[in-house]
């Protein structure tokens, strides 16, 4: 199904584990390898479908363990001297997990094993599998305008589709027309297609536009271009245009991270989006200093190298960890600040910029975050520092040279090559390819729309359906969001009242 070694496959997990076990015997690294071992032990667990559990499965804040972690610890390599090295820890963890399967660490009435399978937290009583599924329904056979809560209801679904995608309720006349149609469900899908072309869905400040807010994180005060702020630095309209373009029609959503073009928007009764490719010089001539995109065409990676993204996230930082973390969070759904997606790399962090991130408490995260960040280090944010540097928000192979005097003598030694999802990459373009083709990207994209349209994350009873949704998105639908949406409105979660 997937290209380039998605982490969900046994082969990919083995590679990731090997990278971690290659060196270093710090306790911090031993803890961070645990999510991979958990998924090796329970490959069918819900928490391992297209993702990995966060460290909060066993810990509150590492190394402090929660109730489940304490049970696992008690069963871990009994009699073996502490501290365990990574090899011993990884070898003993599966048996320890299996030894506590029948226990109920948080006392919520659900065994640890059942919680792992369901994707809930065995160390948190507030997190437990729901009842899920369709309860025994009392069928209402009388002629009534009430919804049928025992099955998919066409009128209910039609109303939701109209509201979600067109922004208004259907009239009584429209509902009666639906009921009189030969194929109500075909009519609902036709309505979806109609609404997907409208401004409520795809226009400026429409539904799709707002879906990008937390990924782009705009700020009017520093916007350039149209409607500039008081300190115009970069224009985020390009980011919104690129985002929406890759969510509509049959466009490949992976180009969010791989595109080397930008997109022009034409507002009107029906908003249109048109891609264009211009060199920085051509773009400067076309749009002036306020709108120009400065990264050379061959160095672009979609949303990751826009002027706004680089300026607002990287700013003046030589090792822009915030930039990498924002990309990881926004497009792969892995929030390192919540200890998600930790896949530590051997002999990391090196701490090139002398921020003491190699301390054990810090290295828990930075062993993943720093190699994740290295490919971003050659892209300017706001230039500054000794020597001034290159153009803002541009690619500069020698960017780190000037930070030796301001940060640490070793800062210029930071490589451009890095690691993402356990895979070595030579630069940001390769980083973007791995990310775009990952299970995490497909799952996160589907999850964004599920939460938007269903109104909440998938419940336990929805998990198989949700997994099928994102897998089809990446498979037969060729990363077309609109084709995925046609699947989504047919799900029980959306169409059963």
């Amino acid at each position: 199904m997937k290209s380039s070694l998605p982490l969900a496959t046994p082969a990919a997990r083995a590679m990731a584990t090997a990278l971690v076990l290659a060196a270093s015997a710090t306790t911090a690294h031993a803890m961070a390898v645990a999510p991979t071992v958990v998924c090796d032990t329970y490959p069918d667990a819900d928490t391992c479908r297209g993702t990995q559990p966060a460290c909060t499965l066993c810990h509150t804040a590492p190394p402090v363990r929660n109730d489940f972690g304490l049970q696992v610890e008690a069963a871990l390599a009994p009699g073996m001297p502490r501290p365990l090295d990574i090899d011993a820890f990884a070898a003993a963890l599966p048996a320890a997990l299996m030894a506590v399967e029948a226990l109920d660490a948080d006392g919520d009435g659900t065994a640890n094993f059942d919680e792992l399978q369901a994707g809930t937290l065995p160390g948190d009583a507030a997190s437990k599998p729901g009842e899920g599924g369709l309860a025994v329904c009392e069928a209402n056979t009388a002629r009534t305008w009430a919804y049928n809560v025992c099955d998919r209801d066409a009128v209910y679904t039609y109303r939701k589709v109209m509201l979600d995608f067109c922004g208004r309720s259907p009239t009584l006349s429209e509902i009666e027309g639906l009921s009189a149609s030969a194929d109500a469900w075909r009519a609902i899908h036709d309505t979806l297609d109609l609404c997907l072309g409208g401004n409520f869905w795809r226009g400026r400040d429409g539904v799709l536009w707002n879906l990008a807010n937390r990924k782009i994180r705009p700020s009017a005060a520093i916007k350039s271009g149209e409607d500039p702020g008081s300190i115009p630095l970069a224009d985020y309209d390009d980011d919104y245009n690129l985002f929406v373009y890759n969510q509509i029609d049959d466009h490949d959503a992976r180009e969010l991270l791989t595109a080397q073009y930008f997109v022009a928007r034409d507002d009107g009764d029906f908003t249109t989006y048109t891609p264009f490719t211009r060199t920085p010089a051509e773009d400067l001539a076309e749009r002036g200093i306020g709108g120009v995109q400065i990264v050379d065409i061959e160095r672009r990676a979609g949303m990751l190298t826009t002027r706004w993204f680089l300026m607002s996230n990287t700013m003046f930082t030589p090792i822009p960890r915030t930039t990498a973390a924002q990309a990881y969070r926004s497009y792969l759904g892995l929030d390192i600040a919540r200890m998600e997606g930790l896949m530590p790399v051997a002999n990391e962090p090196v701490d090139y910029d002398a921020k003491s991130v190699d301390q054990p408490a810090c290295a828990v995260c930075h062993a993943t975050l720093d190699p994740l960040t290295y490919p971003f280090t050659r892209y300017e944010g706001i230039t500054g520092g000794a020597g001034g540097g290159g153009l803002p928000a541009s690619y500069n192979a020698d960017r780190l040279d000037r930070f030796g005097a301001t940060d640490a003598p070793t800062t210029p030694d930071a490589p451009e090559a890095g690691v993402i999802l356990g895979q070595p990459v030579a630069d940001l373009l390769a980083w973007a390819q791995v990310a775009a083709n990952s299970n995490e990207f497909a799952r996160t994209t589907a999850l964004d729309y599920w939460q938007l349209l269903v109104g909440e994350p998938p419940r336990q009873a929805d998990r198989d359906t949700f997994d099928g949704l994102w897998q089809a998105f990446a498979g037969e639908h060729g990363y077309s969001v609109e084709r995925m949406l046609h699947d989504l409105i047919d799900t029980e979660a959306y169409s059963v009242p």
Partner: protein
Amino acid sequence: MFRKHHIESSLRFCVLALLAAACGGDDGAPPASTEQPASAAARVKLKGPQRLANDLAQALAIPRQELCRELGQADCFETHDIVLGGVDPYRLRIDEPLPEAPVTAPMAVDRIALSACGERAARDFAAPGDAVVFAEVAGAGALPSTRARAAVARRLYERLLARPADAAEIDALVAFGDQLTDHAEPARQWAQLACYAVATTTENLFY
């Protein structure tokens, strides 16, 4: 569940038991009142400011910008955008709707619904011959007949909720009018409040 509107005692509505009585009228008997089984997995979303505005504009045939203005100037939906579930990523850095509706959300909804319904009532009563929603009562000064009120009640459900009202719902809207006889303009007051009652139901505000 969704299909039963919440009746505010503070607005002097009467709550009636579910009846199967037919109210009659030119369009025939309304559906008998029925109990609906509860949803096994209810998932409900707030409409939010844009959808609510679009629906009120459509149901009441009033241009969106003329539905409600605070102090006669500022658009109510823009004024109350965040509390109604909107966003402002550019200035306030609110990227997503608030996870919990604030305590002022119902107040904002009340103000908007009263204003929009009052605007429709004002237009219909000013030109009864062109009335859109309140035709049967627009020419009246005193409290209209139960028959006239029932006709308007049915129309309010059809326009605002896109379904026929059942007998109990019609009876409830008709009945509270009897408590307005002391008002200076009972017909217009009833029209605005009946519209408000349906417009602020859970069924209309959520989906």
